[in-house]
């Protein structure tokens, strides 16, 4: 059995920490936790995690200091900052200090998973452009920007195709409205109220890709978002 990817969480809030552990373990990661900067720094040195989830407001030692020390010591790991200090300046400072990504609290767990995947995938060679994504009987031609189901060509608007592609790239996982706002609509999720736009767009996409077919692929996960997956039999 290949060694599992190891994630270190430095987070002082116990509830948050336990929830993250539970979620990440069921996503297949090995997780270790620390509740202070010192402890986290020690674990980062001794356990060599692949990825560090770092809270910035820690007792005794600020998260940014820990990050600085880790980068100074040349430890090779991805670092994802999780914090409620979420201004542009905080973000810039975090990234400048050596973080690979920055996620503001509160975040959706599915988004956290997506970011973690993206960070760990950075090592892998990029996927070929002319690939096709296949989910059950749904085929998406990424380069040709077309989609078909059961061999039947689906007539999609550009936005509908982008939405479908994004859902397909995150297949099996739930994507939140915030992720869609930012990644598909390319709007600043924080200031643009387009949840109802997304809902209408999803409803239209569903009419085209699911309604004519017996097996429904596009699921609404209440309170979280949407997911494109082959339903379990």
């Amino acid at each position, binding site marked *: 059995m290949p060694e599992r990817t190891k994630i270190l969480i430095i987070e002082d809030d116990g509830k948050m920490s336990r929830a993250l552990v539970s979620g990440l373990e069921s996503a297949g990661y090995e997780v270790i936790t620390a509740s202070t900067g010192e402890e986290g720094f020690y674990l980062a040195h001794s356990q060599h995690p692949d990825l560090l989830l770092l809270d910035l407001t820690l007792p005794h030692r600020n998260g940014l200091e820990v990050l600085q020390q880790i980068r100074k010591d040349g430890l090779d790991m991805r670092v994802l900052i999780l914090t409620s200090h979420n*201004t542009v300046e905080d973000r810039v400072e975090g990234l400048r200090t050596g973080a690979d990504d920055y996620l503001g609290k509160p975040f959706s767990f599915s988004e956290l998973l997506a970011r973690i995947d993206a960070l760990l995938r950075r090592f892998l060679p990029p996927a070929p452009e002319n690939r096709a994504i296949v989910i059950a009987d749904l085929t998406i031609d990424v380069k040709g920007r077309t989609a078909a189901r059961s061999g039947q060509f689906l007539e999609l608007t550009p936005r509908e195709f982008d939405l479908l592609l994004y859902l397909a790239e995150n297949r099996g996982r739930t994507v939140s409205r915030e992720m869609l706002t930012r990644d598909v609509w390319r709007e600043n999720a924080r200031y643009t109220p387009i949840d109802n736009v997304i809902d209408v767009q999803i409803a239209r996409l569903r009419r085209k890709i699911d309604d004519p077919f017996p097996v429904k692929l596009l699921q609404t996960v209440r*309170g979280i978002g949407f997911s494109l997956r082959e339903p379990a039999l």
Partner: protein
Amino acid sequence: MKMPPTLRGRLTLWYSLVLAALLLIYAGILFAFQYVVLTHQLLHDEVQDIITVEGLLYFDSKGMLQLRQDYFSRPQSHLLIDRLMEVRDLNGDVLYRSQTLHGMALGGPNRPNEGDSSFGERIVRLADGSHAFLVSHLHTLGGRTLLIRLGYSIVPLRDRMLQFLLLLLVAVPIALAFAAFAGQAIARRALKPLDRMGTRAENITASNLGDRLDIDGPEELSHLALSFNHLLDRLEQAFVQLRRFTSDAAHELRTPLAALRTIGEVALEKNESPTAYRDALGNILEETTRLNETIDSLLMLARAEAVTPDNQRTTFFVSELVDEVLSLFSILMEERNITALKEDEAAGRVAIFTDRGLLRIAVVNVLHNAIKFSPTGSSLHIQYFRSASPSGALCISIQDEGPGIAAGEHERIFERFFTSTSRATVAASGAGLGLSVAKLVINRLGGNIWFDPEFYSGAKCVIELPIFGKA
């Protein structure tokens, strides 16, 4: 020299320095004037005296020159006591010398033409070291030409001038001391209102922000006090607004929290199916999303209030921005069959220089609001025009055919957390921050936003923007 730290001290110092300079100049002029006047007087006396003396000279039987003394009955006459006189012939031989000279010569050898055409007044040094101011005159007596030199010691004059100088030297510092003291007192008196203002201002804190400074006093100070009072007005207003906003925000956050709690408790109380639990959890998550949006908007408001977006300005066409936002919402409009009718679009094709990102936030909120309240199958009228004001600001009016705004709510609609009391709009009301954000942003860009109160069949929102951004 180190300046005194207080304004009072500085005023006094400058005042004293200027006064000292003036006094010194004044004393100098006075001194010189006095000297000239006294010298002139002495000359005048000597000339008078020489004429008198001419009448008193005679040769006695032995051919010696004598001065008739009996002319003056009083031997103590100062002319007799003080007068220095010497009479010479043109060869320089002394024919007469007054006793007051004690045998000393009055002046050096004869000068060419001495006493011929002028009195030749001058100061000479005597053998005993004292100085005398003398005049010369030629006089013919008994067929002989005599040179009369007549002078007075200038020691009394010098003494007098010295006394005068001493008087000035004593009087000037005394006058200066008085002036400085008076200046200090006057300055203290004049600046007293400042002290009072300072004490008053120190006592104003958050709890008595309604207190104001006294505005009686000299005009400059009362003006200052008035300015500070205006500042306090604005601070108080901001503070009251902040306090109300905080309590509103707490209330707004408590409402979804209450929902969260109730949903959670009810779900746990009942022994329900997994599906019902899922439903409850989903419900809770939806509420947290709403909470998060509210917090984001609050932060946005707080941040937009704190910074001026000066460095992010670009030039762009307003109509393009509006079209971009319309296309973002086009799917909503399609769904409810709402048509956007654009009027005078050419007027909107004006390049304006402002923060595009901020303006977009405002336009998104206003359009979103208009679409939200538009009934199915209605139209949305978007019109561009230039305002009547001399600056010719660009106006965008966005007009819907919805329920409109209840009378008296045209201003309040921009207040934070405002949700209309009117029944028609209750169902669609959101967190109540969108229009506050829009207003704040537009104001930050130097523009105005208002709802046309004359407009009843729906709501008409007008955004007025300066073309070159905030000056």
